[in-house]
């Protein structure tokens, strides 16, 4: 009886960890962004906001759903400017030669970090249980949550 109760308590305890949705991000966190980014890559809300913004701000216009078009593919293992978070952040905010526009002044820092986390999830760099599992549009490929890490 006591063992069963203990087991029940343990099972109930497992339900206690609920993912936090951080809506108000202090400026200190967006400036020193390593911890923020690390948290985003584990957070389903941040990743899904990144995916929404990827569509809203027409990243798909050039990068398609990650497969590339006018712009390079984002779901493969080729990175012209590096795949770590700071490099992707710089690509978005400052732009890159041959067409990538700069979004500084157009995007908020925390939105940019959400986009960075989502872009990395496209090639399997975010945690699988947090990465988006579905698409709003027709998309034949495997969702971000099923992709293995590509270097």
């Amino acid at each position, binding site marked *: 009886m006591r063992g069963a109760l203990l087991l029940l308590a343990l099972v109930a305890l497992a339900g206690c960890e609920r993912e936090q*949705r951080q*809506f*108000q*991000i202090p*400026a200190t966190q967006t400036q020193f962004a390593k911890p923020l980014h690390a948290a985003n890559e584990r957070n389903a809300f941040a990743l899904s*906001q990144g995916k*929404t913004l990827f569509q*809203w*701000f027409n990243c798909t216009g050039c990068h398609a759903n990650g497969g590339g078009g006018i712009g390079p593919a984002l779901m493969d293992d080729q990175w012209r400017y590096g795949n770590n978070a700071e490099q992707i952040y710089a690509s978005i905010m400052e732009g890159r030669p041959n067409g990538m526009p700069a979004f500084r*002044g*157009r*995007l*908020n820092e*925390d*939105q940019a970090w959400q986009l960075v986390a989502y872009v990395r999830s496209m090639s399997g760099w975010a945690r699988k249980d947090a990465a988006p599992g579905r698409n*709003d549009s027709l998309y034949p490929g495997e969702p971000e949550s099923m992709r293995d890490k590509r270097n």
Partner: protein
Amino acid sequence: MRTQDILASAGPQAQHIEALWWLMLVICAVVFIAVLTGVALALIRSPRGDPATPPDLSSLARPERSAAIVVVAAVAVCAALLIFLTIASFLTDRRLASLGPPALEVELTAHRWWWEVRYQDADPSRIFATANEMHIPVGKPVLVKLKADDVIHSFWVPNLAGKKDLIPGRDATLTLQADKPGNYRGQCAEFCGVQHAKMALLVIADPPEQYEAWAAAERKPALEPAGNEQERGRDIFVNGRCAMCHAIQGTSANAKKAPDLTHFASRETLAAGAVPNTIGHLAGWILDPHSIKPGVNMPANPLDPDDLHALLAYLGGLR
């Protein structure tokens, strides 16, 4: 005028629903009281005994005819009442669908967590958009086309009509009419995310000539900025972050992911009814929207005080 109240109907659609609601309430109340009275009578009249009394098995020897008659009669009355209510409900549905040809067509798109209101017209240059506020002319049927951008929402303005869901990828329609001028508050009636509760829609019924004047004003592009400060505000809006999601007709800001702000200052509320549209609330909303509506898609915008004042002056002038 009680607002957001199904028992204060302000149009034919809501009247039909209210009539049916009263009919059902009265019949069900009468039946409920009759059942409770029967139970109470049975309890009062039942024979009393103590543990030593032998059980009363007399009904096995001679069947209770009078009890059988009561039960059969009650079942027949219940069946008749249920069939009557079914027919009444069916007739109400029919009447809801027969409001006559619409005088106006409005496309209402629900987003997380606001309402996009687009007034349709055969002439494309007369189409215009606003948000979270739907003006309609009194006494004329209005066809509302219901769409959703992201998840399932539900349209419900209790004073004017019943509920109808807005489902992504599907078009639903609803015809409504207001017979009295007034402001009728509506609310998303299908849980749609963290800010479902702060997703209000204000339906404002105006006399037809007043409605026409409002629509004519809405069709115009935004007012040009008056003075240097407003001009600076417009530049901040158009060249900065605001234009990524919002539109102001007559400027280069033309995004469709957030409310159209062309005549923003003429609206009564901010953030889909979350707070009144005053300069203080607007400043708070721009700087830290998540303190008003946590989780909203509007990001926090840490602006310099001078830039914020210029932006407030410009937005406040968009009548």
